[in-house]
């Protein structure tokens, strides 16, 4: 009667197992449904969406909505499509991720291997900054970016994302380096290796897994950011802001198929990163959030 599998402690009957599989598949359908709707409807002509069924496959398959979304759709006042905004996002994301990850690695190294009085307090203050609602910094940030002459520019947004990213990257590297034996660092020190030499030769070579986590985390956060982009980007808007402008624009017919294609374009980089390296991301995220 009961189906005892070898290595799980909890025994369940065949009937229960069928029920469990049914539920799990049902939820898989729930999570996949919006993606399915987006993809299917981005490949239909508009008439099929307004008169048809959102779950139905296209009768006429077309890539025109994708072309529209990428290079022709009206965003704001210019019919440029999402392409230039996609490029903006890349120009913001790449330096922001690179800089914040390097800083995080060095901070983590200092906070675990070169401890000093008050370092826990500094780490605590840095950690708290990860959670602040960014509304609290919007007003002064707008003023400071203006004073620095980088308001409404890509370097301005890079600065913003680096500043509010180093809390998380430091957290990741600190937790990762904390379990690395400090004796090895001390031994290298006695052999005459200096601060940077130890970092380059001992710490960095073991940092692969956590760097993957930090890069993915920062990439997704910066790419998906909307608040800072909407507040500080000026004309150099990132992809999320442009997509929102496209979808919310009140002029003309609502081209749902173009909106869906645009939404997938905006989601594609993070989805790709997730598909390629998601396993490491989750593993590292667990290490970061459950262990603290």
């Amino acid at each position, binding site marked *: 009667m009961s189906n005892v599998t070898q290595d799980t402690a909890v025994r369940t009957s065949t009937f229960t197992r069928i029920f*469990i599989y049914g539920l*799990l598949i049902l939820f898989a359908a729930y999570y996949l449904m919006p993606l399915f709707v987006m993809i299917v409807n981005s490949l239909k002509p508009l008439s099929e969406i307004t008169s048809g069924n959102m779950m139905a496959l296209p009768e006429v398959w077309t890539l025109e909505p994708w072309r529209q979304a990428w290079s022709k759709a009206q965003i704001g006042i210019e019919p440029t499509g999402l392409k230039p905004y996609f490029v903006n996002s890349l120009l913001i994301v790449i330096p922001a991720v690179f800089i914040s990850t390097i800083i995080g690695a060095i901070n983590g190294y200092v906070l675990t291997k070169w401890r000093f009085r008050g370092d826990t307090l500094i780490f605590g203050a840095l950690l708290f900054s990860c*959670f602040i609602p960014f509304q609290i910094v919007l007003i002064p940030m707008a003023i400071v970016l203006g004073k620095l002459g980088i308001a409404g520019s890509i370097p301005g947004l890079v600065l913003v994302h680096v500043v509010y990213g180093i809390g998380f990257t430091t957290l990741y590297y600190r937790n990762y380096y904390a379990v690395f034996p400090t004796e090895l660092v001390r031994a290298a020190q006695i052999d005459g290796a200096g601060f940077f030499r130890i970092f380059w030769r001992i710490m960095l070579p073991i940092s692969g897994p956590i760097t993957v986590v930090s890069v993915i985390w920062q990439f997704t956060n910066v790419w998906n950011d909307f608040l800072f982009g909407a507040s500080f980007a000026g004309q150099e808007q990132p992809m999320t802001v442009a997509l929102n402008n496209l979808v919310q624009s009140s002029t003309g017919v609502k081209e749902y198929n173009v909106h869906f294609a645009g*939404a997938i374009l905006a989601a594609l980089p*993070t989805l790709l990163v997730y598909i390629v390296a998601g396993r490491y991301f989750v593993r590292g995220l667990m290490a970061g959030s459950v262990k603290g």
Partner: protein
Amino acid sequence: MANNAGQDDFQTKLQNWLPKIVLSPSIAAMVVFVYGFIAFTVYISFSDSKMLPSYDWIGLANYTKLWKLSHWWVSITNLAVFATLYIGICTVLGLSLAILLDQKIRGEGMLRPIYLYPMALSFIVTGTAWKWILDPGIGLENTMHQWGWESFHFDWIKDRNMAIYTVVIAAVWQTSGFVMAMFLAGLRGVDNEILKAAQIDGASNWRLYRRIVIPMLRPAFLSAFVILAHLSVKSYDLIIALTGGGPGRATEVPATFMYSYTFTRNSMGIGAASAVIMLMTIAAIITPYLYAELKEKK
């Protein structure tokens, strides 16, 4: 000789100072951009700033005004409803999925990424997708009609009283898989020997989970709560993309309130006051948690 010793001394001193020097830019950035900015916004909340920041102190006037605004009451009521349902449903759904997935499921490797991928998406993308799925004209309602369920009626997104629940639907879709992963990690840490011993004693599966496994997941519950609570206070993008705060003001939350008062309604002082209240709400949740975490480590 003496010269050499002096140089060594300098080298040692430099090595001692180097870690602090290297850390100092981050500390400076944090002091200015996080804590300095917080102090500045707090100051603005006590000033009569309108369209531009002003430094004239007016005491608590902005806060008194804020708490008299029906717009603000709508926002915090919505946040309370949203946060309660969002945290509750994500936790129950995440825990259930994790327990189900932990039953030696074939194909777990395929299911897990399916549950998790929404968290890789931007809230703007999630909002765009759900906006049209929930739209009665082209979305779910229309689909059900086409499939022959003529009386099916689902227009919450256009209904002032129900619209906030559509935000919950989309937000749960986005985050529940992530909560599942947190619980799954916790479940994998539970010692199987304890479970086997309890089963030999004749405990049913239900009792086993309720009495032994779930209490052992306390740290995962705590982390999930802290993450979900702070996400719900910060939620802004999803509401902008899904409902834009509407219909009317039906889905306004403090984050959208702050933005519109500060940047479009020329009431920067009131906007700043609302931001301070958001920060205090999050601080009340986060600080004890961080304190406990950091203390434990020592």
